[in-house]
C-alpha cells in the first residue's frame, strides 16, 4: 500500500522508454487496494474497528468537544489573542509618505513607547494626548482600524484591548487630523 514513486522504481528497460506504461500499472495497483472511502461508510458515521481514513484538513465533528454554544462564541472573540506567541505585525501608513512600514506591536509595552517609535520611524512629532481633545499641538494624529473596520484614535482604550483589536495604523495629517482632535469625536 502507499504510493509508488515512478522515479525511484526499479524497472527493466532502458531509461527513457515507456514511462507512461509503468505509471499506469503503478496507479492501477493503488486503485485496486480496496480501502474504504468515506463515501462507502455507513451514513451514521461510525467507522468501526478498522482504521479510519483521516482527511488532511481536520473536519469538525458536530457537538464535539462538548461545549455550550455561548462558551464557544465567547472564545471566538478572543481568537486574536491566541497569536500572543508570534508578533503582532501591522502596517503603518502616513499621509503623504511614499510607502508603508510594518511594526510589531508586541515590542512595545504601552502607548508612549509605540508613539515614540512612530515618531522616529516617520520623523514627525505627535501632539499631547487628552481624552477630551485627542492629540493637541501637532498636525498629526495616530489612528488605527479596529476589528469592526472602524477608524479609531490611538490611545482611547487600554493597551491590551488595543493590540488585540488593531488591524492597521494610519497617521493622519492636516485638516482630517484636526477634525479628530476636536470634540467632534
Amino acid at each position: 500500500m502507499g504510493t509508488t514513486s515512478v522515479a525511484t522504481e526499479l524497472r527493466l528497460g532502458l531509461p527513457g522508454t515507456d514511462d507512461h506504461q509503468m505509471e499506469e500499472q503503478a496507479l492501477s495497483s493503488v486503485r485496486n487496494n480496496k480501502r474504504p472511502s468515506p463515501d462507502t461508510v455507513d451514513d451514521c458515521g461510525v467507522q468501526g474497528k478498522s482504521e479510519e481514513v483521516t482527511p488532511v484538513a481536520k473536519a469538525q465533528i458536530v457537538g464535539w468537544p462538548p461545549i455550550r454554544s455561548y462558551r464557544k462564541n465567547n472564545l471566538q472573540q478572543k481568537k486574536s489573542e491566541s497569536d500572543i506567541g508570534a508578533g503582532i505585525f501591522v502596517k503603518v501608513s502616513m499621509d503623504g509618505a511614499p510607502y508603508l512600514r510594518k511594526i510589531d506591536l508586541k515590542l512595545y509595552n504601552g502607548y508612549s513607547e509605540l508613539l515614540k517609535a512612530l515618531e522616529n520611524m516617520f520623523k514627525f512629532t505627535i501632539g499631547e494626548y487628552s481624552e477630551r481633545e485627542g492629540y493637541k499641538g501637532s498636525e498629526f494624529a495616530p489612528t488605527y482600524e479596529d476589528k469592526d473596520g472602524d477608524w479609531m484614535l490611538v490611545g482611547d482604550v487600554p493597551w491590551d484591548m488595543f493590540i488585540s483589536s488593531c488591524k492597521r495604523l494610519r497617521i493622519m495629517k492636516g485638516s482630517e487630523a484636526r477634525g479628530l482632535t476636536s470634540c467632534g469625536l
Partner: protein
Amino acid sequence: MLKRMSYSSFPEDVLEHVFSFVQSDKDRNAISLVCKSWFEIERWCRRRIFVGNCYAVSPRMVIRRFPDVRSVELKGKPHFADFNLVPEGWGGHVYPWIYAMATGYPCLEEIRLKRMVVTDETLELIAKSFKNFKVLVLSSCEGFSTHGLAAIAANCRNLRELDLRESEVEDLSGNWLSHFPDTCTSLVALNIACVGSEVSFSALERLVGRSPCLRTLRLNRAVPLDKLANLLRRAPQLTELGTGAYSSDLRPEALSNLAGAFSGCKELKGMSGFWDVVPAYLPAIYPVCSGLTSLNLSYASIQSPDLIKLVSQCQNLQRLWVLDYIEDSGLEALAASCKDLQELRVFPSEPFGVEPNVSLTEQGLVCVSEGCPKLESVLYFCRRFSNDALVTIARNRPNMTRFRLCIIEPRTPDYLTHQPLDTGFGAIVENCKYLRRLSLSGLLTDLVFEYIGTYAKKLEMLSVAFAGESDLGLHHVLSGCEGLRKLEIRDCPFGDKALLANAAKLETMRSLWMSSCLVSLEACKLLGQKMPRLNVEVIDERGPLDSRPKSFPVEKLYIYRSVAGPRFDMPGFVWNMDEDSALRLS
C-alpha cells in the same frame, strides 16, 4: 366492638402538619403509598413538584392529582441539546403547561424551567395569570425576547427572582428593565448575564437602589466596569455578583474607587462575569477574595500568573470554574491554597485547535486531587491522560461524586502506554463508591463498560462518546447499573441486541439517548411496540423513514418513560414507534 388504633384515625390536619416537614420528593412519594387516606392527605398538601421530563406526564394529570401546588420545576430537551445534537424544533414547549396551570394553579408562585422553549406569549400568560408570582428561573431556555421580559417586569408585583441563566434572549430593546414599577422593591435575585444588548443603566441603578433584599446580581457583558462601583455601593448586602465586562479605560482613582466599593461588600460569597478582563484591574476584588466560596472565571482570558495571584488569596474557595490558561502550575497553586475546594471545572480556551496552546495536562488534576481532600465534582477538558493518573485520582478521592473528563481528541489512548483507558476509568468506578455522574472519553473498549456495570452501583447519569466495541458494552451498563436514570451515547458501535435484551430496564430510567450508533429502525419499532409505557422516538432528518431499509441504523434515538402516551408536538423529523406509527410506516 374493640376499636383498632389505625393510622386513619389520626386527625387529618395533624398528619398534614407532620407531612409539611417532609420536603423531598422521594419521601413524599413514599408517604403517598402508605395507604389511601395518606395518599389523599398528601396530594392536597404537596406544594412543590419536579418533573424531570416534561413529556413523561401531562399537565392535566399533574393538576388533577396535586390540586394546590405553588412551585413547579420542569425540564425539556435532552442534555445533548446543549451541544447542538438535538435539531431545532424538536420540542420542549412549555406553553401547554402554563396554559393548564393558569386555571389549575392560580396561586402558583414559582416556575423553574430547564432546556425548554418559552415564547413571549408564554411569559405574558405567566405575568397575568399568577397574582402572587415570585420566582422565574429560565435555565438554558430559548424562544423569548425582551418583550416577554418586559411583561414579567411590569406585572409581577411581588417578583423576588428573575434568573435567565444561559438562556437565549432575542434582543428587541434594552428598555425592558424600565418596566419594573417603582413600587417593586422585593427583588432578591436578578440574573441577566445572558442578555446581549445594553439595558437602560439608570433603570438598573434605580432598581438595585430600591431593592434592599437583593442578594444576587448578575450583570451582562454590556454593563461597563466604570459603572460597577456605583451599583455595588447601592447593594453592599450582595452575596453573589456577576460583573459585566471587566475592562475599561479606568483611571487610577476609578480603580481605587472600585476597590473601595468592593470592600463595602462584606457578605460577597460568589463572583462570576469577568468578560474581557484586564489583569491590572483584578486587584480591585482582592478585599473580598478571602470570603469567596465560588468563583467563575470561565470567561476570563487571563494567563496563569494572574490566575495564581488571584486564586491564592481565595483560601475559602469551594467552587472554581476556570479556563485552561490556569495550566498545571496554576492548579498546583490552587491545590496548595484552597483546601476547601469541592468543585473544579476547567474549560478549553481553544477547543478546536489541533495543537495544545497551554501547558495543561493530567498532572494538574492529579495535583488538585491530592491537595484538596473535599474535591468531589470535576469537569476537566485536556488533551492527554493516562491510566496511572486516573488510578491516582481514584485512590486520592474515593469521595468523588461527579467525574467528567473530556480528552479533546476522540479515542485518544493513554499517552504513556498507548493502551485504552479502561483500567483508569475502572479504578474511578471501583474506588468512588458514591459516584453519581460520569462522563467518559479517550480510547475505550467494552472492558470499561464491564467495570462500570460491576462497580458503579450508585451511578445515575452516564455520558459516552466514541467508545466501546460491541453491544456487550451497552449490555454491561444496562444490566449492571442499578441506579441509572439517564444514559446518553453518541458515535458508539452499540446496536439492537443490547437494547432489546434490556428493554425492561428502560422503564426504570428517565431517558436514553443514542445518536450515530447502530440501532436499526426495525429494532426501534419492535421496542416501541413491546413497551407501551416507553416513548421510543426516532429523530431522522434524512427524509421519510420508509425510504430506507428497516435494517438501516437510525440517526438519533430518544427513549423515555411516560404515562402520557405519545406527544402531540412532534415535528416532521421525529417519529414515535408505537403501534399506530408502526402501521403507518410499514
